[in-house]
């Protein structure tokens, strides 16, 4: 962790490149705000950051800055808190108040530490614990000393937002109950094994009959809670399924476990052999499988809520009063179509509307995926949730608050989550045939037996068929393979959410790719410099341009400054920024201008004939001095490394590849050509992307994987059979996707498809092993020749095979 940035480093850095000591955003030299702390001069980007730094400093929590390794920069978002709602959730116990709340804004373990430590320093706090995984905080305090608003204020001071705890209480309860049931089953199974082993030994060597009877009774007592408490849900599920004449996995489990248990009860009384261990092991192993599965599932709608919270909930309504207009802050939900509101620089747009006055550039990347900020003038449409850069806009509301483009995207993701039918697992289908088959076999065995033996012996034989047919390793077959598969994926940087994903991903026919941020980096980069004046070479052009652009925050400026890293920059004076056009400044006495072609034309510096022709769809900016044009800079969104290879190897596997993008026709066709893709669609809205995928799925019957990164891809990611979110995508895309690539490597797309193929194959073989072993023992049971040792042997052997085969995937899946 050499790059751990101590405070001292930040200060040292600041002489070269000013960075805010709190949020680490770059600071323009004339905008810096200074603060003295412990005799050190620190630089901040805004008063807010300075104030927060001061809070943390005075609380003696500076070590926060040392532990936040790997933080990405970003301005903190502070939101309002509904105190009354929180107040209702407080519970009192022996004079101590206790509150559970969700804290938004937790990104890492440092956040957890900061919140806990800062709360614990408040007088009156008893305990403060924050759950890293669920972002749930449990706080207890003495209400006589401390009030709720102090606690909430404390959390807010650090930029986190407390919300009433709305986490999935049901889900949490389910996990606990599953853990309790599994824990109980395994404790009793361990105890039971002692007696079963003694009984096995007694079977071969003989045993004192009264001791044998006592052991059977103890074994029966130990098995009872496992069957009825741990196995309760299986029994209930099987009963419900039976009422509608269906056979599910539950039926098989319940049938095997319950018949083994009741036969053993009967045998205990009649001095026969008992199979309590079989009954208990079936339930324990299957619960273990469920527990493994539950750990792999992700929470879906959480990010959706967080994203909706990004949109400001207040809006500046413009009120006309006696020829004077002033602004009032009102809740965004109560503004009506046709009313005017204003947007200040740096604010997010609250609601969709048409610009009436002013001009600015707006970053719409979160909605459209387009990386360039979009220029907005009179009569242009601005969208809720997008970020206004530097102009002041007066906007007329155009749609209702709940019908904005953003609201529609959120709704369609929610719809897709609900609509997606639970995938019928492969094992379930198999079970559907298996259960009735076994029942028929048991009946046949019964009728054969009663031809020559007593009816009671027939019953025992029939039941033993049921027991031996219930493969307890069946419950492990799928989860184990998935555990190994997802573990392998995680090691390679592929996060797979749940086993059903692997099932759906193993036979994909078509991969649909998003362009911006997926095939391309989504970041503007300088791709070419064309010197237009013989006096300057490329490096000199870049040095001049970067010196000027250093003063600007524009995406284009950032591209040029990044390209100029390591080049010595010159001092610029008399800087003037023209929003949406360009920038000018004086460098060692000479005036230079940098900006769009229009800016050059307006400055009358241009000689059109000397310009290189523009046949493609790249962004060009020009640098000019007093004597005329000096250079042309070509800036583009670059293709990601490995994009071409990824597409080629998919096509080799016979998988169709297509691009759907929200970007303009020209830009998309350029990328498609570069990657060797013939099928592409441009200027697609999120809803059109969904329709495109739906058409492929329904009309052509293809299995479709969607790869994307933006919020605009989220509905499509949900609709596709498999959604894959690339590294550095938006939170909402990652939540909507089934597979998240953690590393910035497009080759992982192929690897994840290959991995799911391998895993699915392993699941199939596992199921075959699980069922196969029992098939071998079945004839013995039908003939009424069932030794308990045979029963236990088959069980162990099939479980070992399943475990071994799952681990074998690790070797095969080396990819």
């Amino acid at each position, binding site marked *: 962790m050499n790059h751990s940035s101590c405070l001292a480093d930040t200060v040292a850095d600041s002489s070269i490149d000013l960075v805010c000591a709190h949020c680490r955003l770059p600071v323009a030299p004339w905008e810096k705000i200074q603060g003295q702390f412990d005799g050190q001069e620190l630089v901040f980007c805004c008063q807010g950051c300075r104030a927060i730094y001061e809070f943390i400093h005075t609380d003696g929590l500076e070590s926060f800055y040392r532990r936040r390794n790997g933080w990405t920069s970003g301005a903190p978002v502070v939101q309002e808190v509904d105190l009354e709602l929180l107040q209702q959730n407080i519970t009192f116990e022996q004079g101590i108040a206790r509150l559970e709340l969700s804290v938004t804004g937790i990104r890492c373990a440092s956040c957890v530490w900061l919140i806990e430590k800062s709360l614990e320093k408040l007088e009156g706090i008893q305990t403060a614990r924050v759950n*890293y995984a669920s972002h749930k905080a449990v706080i207890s305090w003495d209400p006589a000393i401390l009030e709720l608003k102090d606690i909430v204020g404390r959390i807010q001071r650090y930029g986190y937002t407390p919300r009433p705890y709305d986490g999935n209480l049901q889900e949490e309860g389910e996990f*606990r109950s599953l853990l309790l049931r599994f824990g109980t089953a395994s404790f009793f199974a361990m105890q039971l094994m002692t007696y079963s082993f003694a009984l096995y030994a007694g079977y071969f060597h003989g045993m004192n009959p009264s001791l044998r009877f006592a052991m059977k009774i103890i074994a029966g007592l130990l098995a009872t809670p496992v069957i009825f408490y741990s196995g309760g849900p299986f029994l209930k599920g099987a009963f419900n399924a039976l009422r509608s004449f269906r056979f599910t996995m539950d039926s098989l489990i319940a049938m095997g476990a319950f018949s083994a248990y009741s036969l053993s009860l009967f045998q205990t009384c009649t001095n026969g052999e008992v199979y309590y261990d079989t009954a208990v092991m079936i339930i324990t192993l299957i619960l273990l499988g469920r527990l493994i599965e539950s750990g792999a599932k992700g929470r879906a709608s959480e990010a959706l809520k967080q994203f909706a919270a990004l949109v400001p909930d207040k809006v500046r309504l413009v009120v006309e009063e006696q020829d004077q207009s002033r602004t009032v802050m009102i809740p965004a939900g109560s503004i009506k179509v046709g009313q005017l509101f204003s947007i200040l620089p740096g604010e997010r747009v609250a609601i969709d509307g048409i610009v009436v006055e002013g001009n600015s550039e707006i970053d719409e990347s979160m909605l459209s995926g387009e990386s360039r900020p979009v220029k907005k003038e009179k009569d242009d449409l601005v969208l809720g949730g997008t970020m206004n850069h530097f102009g002041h806009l007066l906007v007329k509301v155009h749609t209702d608050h709940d019908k904005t483009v953003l609201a529609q995207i959120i709704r369609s993701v929610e719809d897709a989550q609900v609509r997606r039918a639970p995938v019928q697992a492969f094992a379930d289908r198999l079970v559907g045939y298996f259960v009735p088959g076994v029942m028929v076999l048991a009946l046949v065995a019964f009728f054969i037996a009663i031809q020559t033996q007593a009816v009671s012996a027939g019953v025992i034989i029939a039941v033993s068929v049921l027991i031996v047919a219930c493969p307890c390793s069946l419950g492990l077959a799928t989860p184990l393979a998935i555990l190994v598969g997802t573990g392998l994926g995680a090691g390679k940087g592929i996060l797979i959410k749940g086993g059903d994903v692997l099932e759906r991903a193993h036979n994909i026919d078509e991969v649909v790719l998003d362009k911006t941020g997926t095939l391309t980096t989504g970041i503007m980069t300088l791709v070419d410099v064309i010197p237009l004046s013989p006096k300057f070479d490329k490096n000199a052009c870049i040095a001049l341009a970067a010196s000027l652009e250093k003063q600007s925050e524009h995406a284009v400026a950032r591209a040029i400054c990044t390209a100029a890293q390591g080049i010595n920059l010159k001092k610029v004076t008399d800087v003037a920024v023209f929003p949406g056009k360009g920038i000018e400044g004086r460098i060692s006495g000479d005036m230079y201008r940098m900006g769009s072609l229009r800016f050059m034309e307006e400055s009358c510096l241009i000689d059109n004939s000397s310009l290189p022709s523009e046949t493609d769809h790249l962004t060009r900016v020009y640098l000019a001095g007093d004597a005329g044009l000096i250079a042309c800079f070509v800036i583009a969104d670059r293709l990601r490394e490995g994009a071409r290879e990824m597409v080629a190897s998919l096509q080799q596997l016979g998988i169709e590849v297509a691009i759907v993008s929200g970007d303009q026709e020209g830009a998309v066709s350029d990328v498609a050509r570069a990657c060797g893709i013939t099928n592409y669609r441009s200027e697609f809205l999120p809803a059109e992307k969904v329709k495109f995928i739906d058409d492929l799925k329904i009309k052509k019957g293809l299995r479709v994987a969607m790869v994307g990164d933006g919020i605009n891809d989220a509905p499509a990611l949900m609709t596709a059979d498999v959604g894959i979110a690339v590294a550095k995508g938006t939170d909402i895309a990652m939540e909507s996707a089934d597979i998240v690539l953690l590393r910035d490597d497009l080759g992982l797309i192929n690897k994840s498809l290959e991995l799911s193929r391998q895993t699915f194959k392993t699941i199939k073989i596992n199921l075959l092993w699980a069922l196969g072993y029992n098939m071998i023992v079945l004839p013995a049971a039908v003939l009424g020749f069932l030794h308990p040792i045979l029963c236990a042997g088959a069980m162990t052997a099939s479980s070992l095979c399943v475990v071994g085969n799952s681990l074998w995937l690790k070797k095969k899946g080396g990819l």
Partner: protein
Amino acid sequence: MTIWTIGLLIFGSLMLGLAAWFLFLWAVKSGEFDDMEGPKYRIFDEDDIE
């Protein structure tokens, strides 16, 4: 070894098992297994040194 010795040993082992089970029930109910992610980061807290 009389049958009573065996009975006593069986009783003892059952009690030990039950005690472990109750301990487990208590741990789950008091939220010991709720956060399986956070604790591994807590070892980096250096409060005792500071």
